[in-house]
């Protein structure tokens, strides 16, 4: 990896849904190993920004680069680029017809062509890492929401991505299950994973985030070091956002 340029780079990104201008001139740079937490009121475009980062949504102007390579370069195979970007969804989206182990090993086997035995060994390690040893043969329906989300994180990690995207991954969980998922994310951050996290968990943002990106109405309102943001936000809107949380 080249330390010269950021690992993920948004440059003048604009997106419309019909007449609705949902992303307005987004410029963000995410360095290797950095944890960027995107916060903001609902409908501010946070999730859309994340979904554009692996082209689940298309942008209309600007550019998003992964490790210096444009995602929108027509020479690039989007399926190859996506293998380098892990994504975890609010609704888990585990494959219900596959066991936890199969969910994790499936893409490495099918997409990367890794031998089944090797992929399953890696999957077992990952299951242990997210604290679910013994649940290898369970189907998603037999797991709690928190357990499912941890399997989903392991599934994304199995592709050995350069960056992980988290799209409100604790919003669909019962309150008592939020902690176990945030715990796994905290460990990942400590291990140096580059992460872009859309969340409403301010405790996590403050504690684990390196930088806070505050969005409102499709715009970036403020980008500040996490510690500073929660002490002294630079903008009026940042102050207003924080005061509403208290």
């Amino acid at each position, binding site marked *: 990896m080249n330390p010269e340029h950021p690992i993920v780079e948004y440059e003048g990104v604009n997106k419309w849904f019909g007449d609705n201008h949902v992303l307005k001139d987004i410029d963000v740079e995410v360095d290797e190993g950095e944890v960027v937490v995107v916060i903001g009121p609902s409908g501010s475009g946070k999730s859309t920004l994340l979904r554009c980062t*692996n082209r*689940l949504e298309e942008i209309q102007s600007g550019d998003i680069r992964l490790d210096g390579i444009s995602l929108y370069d027509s020479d690039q195979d989007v*399926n*190859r680029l*996506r*293998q380098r*970007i*892990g*994504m975890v*969804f609010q*609704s888990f*989206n*585990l*494959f*219900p*017809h*596959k066991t936890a182990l199969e969910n994790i090993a*499936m*893409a490495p086997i*099918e*997409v*990367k062509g890794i031998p089944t035995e090797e992929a399953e060994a890696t999957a077992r390690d990952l299951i242990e890492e997210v604290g679910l040893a013994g649940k290898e043969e*369970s*189907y*998603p*329906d*037999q797991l709690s929401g928190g357990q499912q989300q941890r399997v*989903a994180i392991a*599934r*994304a990690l199995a*592709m050995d991505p350069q960056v992980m995207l988290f799209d409100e991954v604790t919003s669909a969980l019962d309150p008592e299950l939020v902690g176990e998922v945030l715990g796994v994310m905290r460990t990942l951050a400590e291990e140096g994973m580059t992460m872009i996290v859309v969340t409403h968990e301010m405790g996590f943002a403050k504690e684990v985030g390196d930088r806070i990106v505050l969005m409102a109405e499709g715009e970036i309102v403020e980008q500040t070091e996490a510690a500073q943001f929660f002490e002294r936000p630079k903008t009026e809107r940042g102050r207003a956002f924080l005061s509403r949380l208290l």
Partner: protein
Amino acid sequence: MSDAYGDHETHEETAGSGIVDNDNVLRRVGEVLSSSFALLVLAMLAWIVTTQVNPELLQTIFPRFVEAYLLVIQIVVVSSILSVFLGVFVGLGRISNSPITNRIASGYVEFFRGTPLLFQLFLIYLGIPRLWATGTFPLTNWEVPAAIIGLTLNHGAYVGEAVRGGIGAVPDGQMEAARSLGMSRVMGMRKVVLPQAWRNALAAIGNDQIILVKDTSLLTVIAVPEIMSVFRNVNSTTLDAWTPLLWVALFYLAITVPMSKLVQYLESRADWGGERH
């Protein structure tokens, strides 16, 4: 106190506001009604079998029904497999982003679902050979291939609609998760969406395949020696209705009952992480 909610009869129940309000009484009424109905049917059946069915004739015509039954089974197995296979592609065509594929699949479904099977059978059996000069159509026993083609094309349309519905019921997040892991759309379809769509569509497909079995009775009009045609022959020569009818019922059930068991088995197998674990 818990006794009052159990299955035991208790005297407290008589204290209810009205007799029909009482769940237990209603249940008993249902049981009495359904048992009386079953008894009535069984009595009628016994009466018919003893007075109307000719045991000698029953034996004589048995081999002819077996022969027809075996032919029907062969037609059903081939048309069933082909129509499910075709239906998967029709279903995929119906959800295709390509307007060409989509319209062709829709047109296909509209035609084969919108016209009677009997018409389609005539179209294939009588219509197609007419496209050759008289007497030059190369197939002599055209009725069986025509039957298989007709049943396949007709039921392919119904299976296609079941598959389309099954795919539609799979949440979008499944394909998104597959794509986010680097799978192509085709791979996501094959590995993630279709196995789930299959489970969703199984009941409807099973239903349709049982209808396919019964639709073979129409083949009598295109000279396929199937079960109903054996009945018509026996009936017209002996004027006996009940004896051959008994065989007709038994032989159809001998196909459809195992078939619905098979569907049940396939459904239980696709109940991932459900009761069976």
